[in-house]
């Protein structure tokens, strides 16, 4: 009796300790965002005085100052966000649609180089973009495509990790009998893919679309190399400007700029978090 009592007491202590540690890491993860929001509402002088968790009333004023400062600049925050959208939306579509198509081709059909094609995709999955970028940049330069959005959108067609994920998902959800049945009904192969396979793959398509959108939205390296005209630059490149002398003089403006680039992502994440967190686990087990 006594023994089990002390056991349950130690279990309680153990549990409490674990709750405290987990809470600590949650605070660590959230603290920079909280400071960001608080500082975006404070005046430049108040920010320099130190950390404070009490919001102030300068949010609108800081925002107005930001608009004032970017007045006359080629690249404004709004323009940069629009540019990012113009690249990310078609880019995400390309990588998800064509990756599903590739995975479908390997999963459904039998052909001579099927095994080779699959091994090739697995082998190149981990080759990072940064390594090929010089050759890629020169190639685009020769084609006259530097400073256009083509090099940022079209190469997204080849996304080995997305193909891998889609193939894993197809193995468990796509039945060949269904495709056979569609064939007998006279549906063409591409129609079967678009009308039957893609709808079945919806959950996987949604997950991968979210991840691709995030990855392309956040990309800084390739756009920095490819885009030279200010008015064509993307949001992460605008963020780079926030660190320059033009903005640095007013901290409230820097924080409100960061606020506008970060908080929409946080909100979108919290809405979609169910799919995202499940997607991380799914990609990891087999990855």
């Amino acid at each position, binding site marked *: 009796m006594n023994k089990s009592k002390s056991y349950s007491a130690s279990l309680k202590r153990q549990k409490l300790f674990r709750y405290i540690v987990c809470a600590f890491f949650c605070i660590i993860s959230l603290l*920079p965002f909280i400071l960001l929001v608080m500082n975006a509402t404070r005046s430049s002088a108040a920010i320099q005085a130190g950390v404070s968790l009490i919001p102030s009333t300068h949010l609108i004023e800081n925002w107005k100052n930001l608009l004032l400062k970017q007045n006359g600049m080629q690249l404004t925050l709004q323009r940069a966000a629009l540019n990012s959208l113009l690249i990310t939306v078609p880019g995400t579509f390309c990588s998800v649609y*064509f990756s599903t198509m590739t995975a479908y081709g390997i999963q459904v059909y039998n052909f001579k180089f099927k095994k080779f094609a699959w091994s090739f995709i697995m082998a190149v999955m981990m080759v990072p973009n940064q390594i090929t970028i010089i050759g890629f940049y020169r190639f685009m330069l020769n084609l006259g495509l530097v400073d256009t959005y083509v090099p940022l959108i079209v190469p997204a067609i080849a996304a080995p990790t997305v193909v891998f994920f889609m193939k894993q998902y197809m193995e468990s959800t796509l039945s060949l009998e269904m495709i056979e049945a569609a064939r007998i009904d006279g549906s063409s192969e591409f129609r079967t893919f678009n009308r039957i396979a893609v709808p079945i793959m919806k959950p996987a398509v949604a997950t991968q679309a979210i991840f691709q959108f995030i990855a392309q939205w956040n990309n*800084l390296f390739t756009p920095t190399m490819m885009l030279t005209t200010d008015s064509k630059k993307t949001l992460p490149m605008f963020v780079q400007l926030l660190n320059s002398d033009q903005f640095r003089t007013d901290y409230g403006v820097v924080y409100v700029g*960061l606020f506008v680039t970060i908080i929409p992502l946080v909100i979108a994440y919290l809405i979609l978090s169910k799919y995202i967190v499940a997607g991380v686990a799914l990609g990891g087990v087999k990855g």
Partner: protein
Amino acid sequence: MKKKKKGVSYGKYGYMFIAPFFIAYLLFQLWPLINTFYYSTLEYYKRNGREFSSFAGIQNFLNVFGLAPGEKAYVLQYLGNTVTMWVMNFIPQILVSLLLAAWLSNQKIKLKGTGAVKVIIYLPSIITAASVSVLFHALFSQYGPITKTLQNIGIISPTYDFMASTMGTRGLISLILFWMWYGNTTLLLISGIMGIDPGLYEAADIDGAGGWQQFRYLTLPLLKPIMLYVLVTSAIGGLQMYDIPALFNPTSTGLVGQPNDTSTSVTMYIMRLYNSDVGKAATVSVVLFAVTLVISLILFSTMGDKEEKRLAKAERRRAK
């Protein structure tokens, strides 16, 4: 005519479906990779605004490794910076992630709200790295609120400036990397632990193994494949780090990580060179490619070997 053989051959559709991927891959990845290797053997120079190139053999490699007169071994220096910052982030990251993963997936000491914890700790990894870097810089800069607060309560001296100290800047870049990625690693490890057969834990319970013993002799060995995956992807990603060091503490004129070039990463060097010296930039890319390849091969072979050796040992023991 339509049915030559019995049944229609659909094989050609397979090629049609995979064609866009392979055409795009060959054009935008493989061809540039081959060219990058080729460019690394060329010397580029400008005359009257036009660009010329000539074959230079291994001269570019001698240059980047500082073996030619008048050249500094920047590649080695920046590789050193990059690896240091990655290691300082990875060791605490894997330890914290293992701890959290073990606790959040523990079925005996069940915690409430694990779903919320997972959502919160994963949050930083989806935020634009550029914004995160500028945010941390603003918070920790000489007149930043965190620096001021730390000075006021006396943790750091009133004149301390993170941005003027090598350890300060590198430490903060590592902290950002840790902060961004430990949630992702925790989720991956949790999915690995969830994949372990629960019967094994029941058996260990019957044998009287305690919590720590179960973690040490059951969870940890069975997590090896997924830890290898985490290690390899993190190492490859870490070697290419760009956004965070490039925006955190660079000089106002260009991509030199202050103080004294000690927080410059390899990809920042490539970015510095790509317009002015194509041959050198390509050479740095080739070196980065080689290092990435070697590191992943070493990791794969050592981790795999150990497992095999252990199995062989167990086999021998059983034979006795």
